[in-house]
Every structure is written in C-alpha cells, then in structure tokens.
C-alpha cells in the first residue's frame, strides 16, 4: 500500500531514465524537434548577416567565435537583459501573448516534417494540411501585434502583413494540389517516398515556382518584405517589440524561414533522399540550408515591389498559374505517367 501513496525513489529514477533514453524523447527534444529548430534558426540569423555582407562586399559578424558564428548567442544574451519598453498606449499583455504565440506557431509545423525515414515526431495523415493550417494563423497574430503596439509604423506593418500573407496563402495551397493529386495522400512521409524515382520539382515545375514565390511572400522576405520595409516602416510590425519579446518574434521569423525551407525540400526536392553513404538527415538539412541560402541571397539581389502591385499579382497571375498547374497535372496523370510517383 505504501507504494501506492509514494512510489519508491528507485522507480521514479527508472521511469525518468526510461523516458530520457527513449527515442521519442530524443526526437522531441533534440533532433527533428526543439533544439534543432532553435539552433537552426539562430544559425540562420548568422548566415543571413554573413551572406548579405558578402553580397555587399562587407565582412559581417567577426568577433564572437570563429568568423562570428557565436554572434546569435551574444545577441540573445544582450536582448535577454534589455528592458522591455512598451509605448504609452500599447497593450502590453496582448503584445507579450502575441510574441509567445508567434513562437508557438513558428515551431509547431516542425513536428510533421520528416527529417529522415521514420525520423519524424508525429507522422500524421493530414501533415500537409496541418502545416498550412498552422501557418494560416500567423496573419491574425501579426495583426494583433500591430494593433496592440498602438504606434503608426507597427500598425501599418501589421496591416500590410495581413493582406500580403492572406493574398499569397491561396496560391500556395493550390500550387501543392498537384502533388496531392499525384500521390493521393497528405502524409509528408509518403510524399517523400513517392519521390524516390524522380523529384517533384521536375513534373511540378510550375507549382514549384508558384510555391517558392508564395513562400517568399509568406516569409515577408525581399522582394516582398513590405511589412518590414526598413526604409519606410523601420521594422514593420516588430518596431515596438523590445528586449525578450523582440527576441521571441525574431527567432520565430527565422524558425519560420527554416520550416518553410524544410517544407520546400520535403515537397519538391525529394526530402531526405540522396545518394552515397551520407545519412538521410544530413541530406535533408543540407538541402534545407541550400534553399534558405537562396532565399537569403534573393534578399541581397532584388528591390522591393509596391504593395498594390504585389497584391494584384498574387490574386491574378499567381492564382492563374496555380490553377494552370492543376490542369497540367491532370494532363500528366491522364497521359499515363502517373506510375513514376506511385508509392
């Protein structure tokens, strides 16, 4: 009876050891899970500064660690100890809640993305739609940040972000429909398995172009970085976030970049598949960082577009291209080439 009231310490230790040594724990905390996304996001902030510096013939971060690789950690420590300043009419509780919400939303899609064969936290049947559903929650949170700041730059940035993300979400979803039609599944693991013979970037080149453009807009990266256009809106909706709240928002944005690159890799670039004796996760992470680097280099190379042109192009050209992609896919399947991607 005593064991019912208080389990022996030995049992607790045993249970803890069993949990910590289990594969699930490793997956959730370390590799495809939390630390992976966190460290990759931190690494991407460094990569962005370094690559942009090279594009602009500068050197970039240099002092913290070898060629400045520890710069994100220094930044993090600096931001942690900063005072949180909120404007006089701002809604502090709402801002803190939204910063936290951004973080939760940015990390959430990571559970569905397979980083290797069976190396996925939650192998869900609705994985693709889950990722999109979580991503569709971003605009409302960003709008709330802009509203809660009660300052002009964040509010304009929030509104722009809302319209931009909303406009590019629909083409993004429709561009993936071709893949869903070819594989007949929403499970991301099965979508990767279907690409063992040929990556989807070949038959779905139109869909890939639409998806990549829409991803740039969803990520608010140049040439679609209107919500945080430095020369007009200072930092956009992040202007009035300070200290740790800013750190969370910033980290969330880079985590989103990482997840989106991983999603592009999964859907179009064959996921974990590679050749040679290099393990699958290495392939996956390599491809992901290549995609992310391309997105970063685009920031250094292209100017910004105007907001009304951006929205109109999203709703006319991109939507039409996505619909055209569907018809191309139908033709491809009817012509009998579908067996290539049969699982």
């Amino acid at each position, binding site marked *: 009876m005593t064991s019912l009231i208080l389990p022996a310490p030995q049992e607790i230790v045993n249970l803890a050891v069993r949990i910590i040594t289990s594969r699930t724990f490793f997956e959730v905390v370390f590799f495809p899970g939390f630390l992976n996304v966190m460290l990759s996001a931190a690494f991407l902030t460094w990569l962005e500064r370094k690559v942009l510096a090279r594009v602009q013939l500068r050197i970039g971060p240099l002092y913290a660690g070898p060629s400045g690789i520890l710069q994100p950690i220094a930044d993090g420590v600096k931001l942690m100890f900063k005072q949180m300043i909120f404007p006089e009419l701002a809604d502090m509780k709402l801002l803190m809640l939204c910063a936290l919400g951004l973080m939760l939303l940015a990390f959430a899609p990571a559970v569905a993305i397979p980083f290797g064969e069976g190396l996925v936290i*939650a192998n869900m049947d609705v994985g693709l739609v889950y990722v999109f559903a979580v991503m569709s929650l971003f605009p409302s949170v960003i709008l709330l940040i802009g509203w809660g700041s009660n*300052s002009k730059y964040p509010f304009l940035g929030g509104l722009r972000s809302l319209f931009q993300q909303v406009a590019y979400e629909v083409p993004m979803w429709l561009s993936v429909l071709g893949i869903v039609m070819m594989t*007949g599944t929403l499970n991301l693991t099965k979508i990767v398995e279907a690409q063992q013979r040929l990556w989807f970037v070949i038959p779905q080149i139109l869909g890939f172009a639409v998806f990549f453009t829409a991803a740039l807009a969803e990520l608010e990266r140049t040439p679609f970085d209107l919500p945080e256009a430095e020369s007009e809106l200072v930092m956009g909706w992040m202007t009035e976030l300070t200290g740790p709240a800013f750190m969370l928002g910033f980290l969330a944005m880079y985590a989103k970049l990482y997840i989106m690159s991983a999603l592009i890799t999964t859907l179009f670039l064959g996921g974990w598949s590679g050749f040679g004796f290099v393990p699958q996760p290495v392939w996956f992470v390599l491809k992901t960082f290549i995609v992310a680097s391309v997105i970063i280099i685009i920031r250094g190379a292209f100017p910004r577009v105007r907001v009304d042109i951006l929205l109109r192009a999203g709703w006319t050209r991109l939507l039409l291209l996505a619909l055209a992609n569907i018809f191309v896919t139908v033709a491809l399947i009817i012509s009998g080439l579908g067996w290539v991607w049969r699982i």
Partner: protein
Amino acid sequence: MVLDVWSLVAIFEILVFLVAFPLLLFGWLMGEKGRDPIRDAPFESGQTRLGEARQRYMMQYYPYLIMFIAFDVVAMFLFTWGLAFLTVSLTQNYLFLIFIVVLIAPLAYALYLSGKREFW
C-alpha cells in the same frame, strides 16, 4: 510507451512554451521598470506624435480579404478532391471543375472592384 500523434504535438508545444515563457518572464523580471513619458513615446522617427495610431486603414484591399475567405474554403474542398482524384471516375471529377468554374465570375467581379480606387 507509445504516444499517439496528437499528444506528441501537444508535448512539443508545451516544451516550446516552457522554454519561451521563462525567457519572457526573466526579461520582464530582470529589466528595469517604471514609465518615462519620453522613452515610452511611440517611435515616430524622432517626430512628436501626431494623433491616434489606429487611423490609416487600407480599405481598398478589403476585396482581397473577402476573396481570401472564399478561396480558403474552396482550397480546403479541392484538397479532398485531390486526395480522391486517382480513385474517382472521370465524370465525377467534372463536378469539381464545375465547382471551380462557378467561382470564376465572382472572382472577376472582385478583381474588377479591387482595381477601382474610387469605390473604396
């Protein structure tokens, strides 16, 4: 111990929360507190504040918002079609084409309206 998919999602989210929330709390506890009218002024590039912040609304993009709601629903329905595309007979596939075609006229109308600045 086998956990099902969605409890793993919940555990992951709780983990993220447990890391992010203490960060926020730590910063709030460690940081200096107290208000200062000059420091707490909203950022306006050094200008003094002119009027309410919540003033300029991009009403001319309202059609895009309504189109988004319509096509969000359409996209979710099209996903179910895409899933079944390989197993459904061709005649039943035409149905979804009708579903899309019906929506072309409203889309054109919305695009026409959104192009006219004087309506908004």
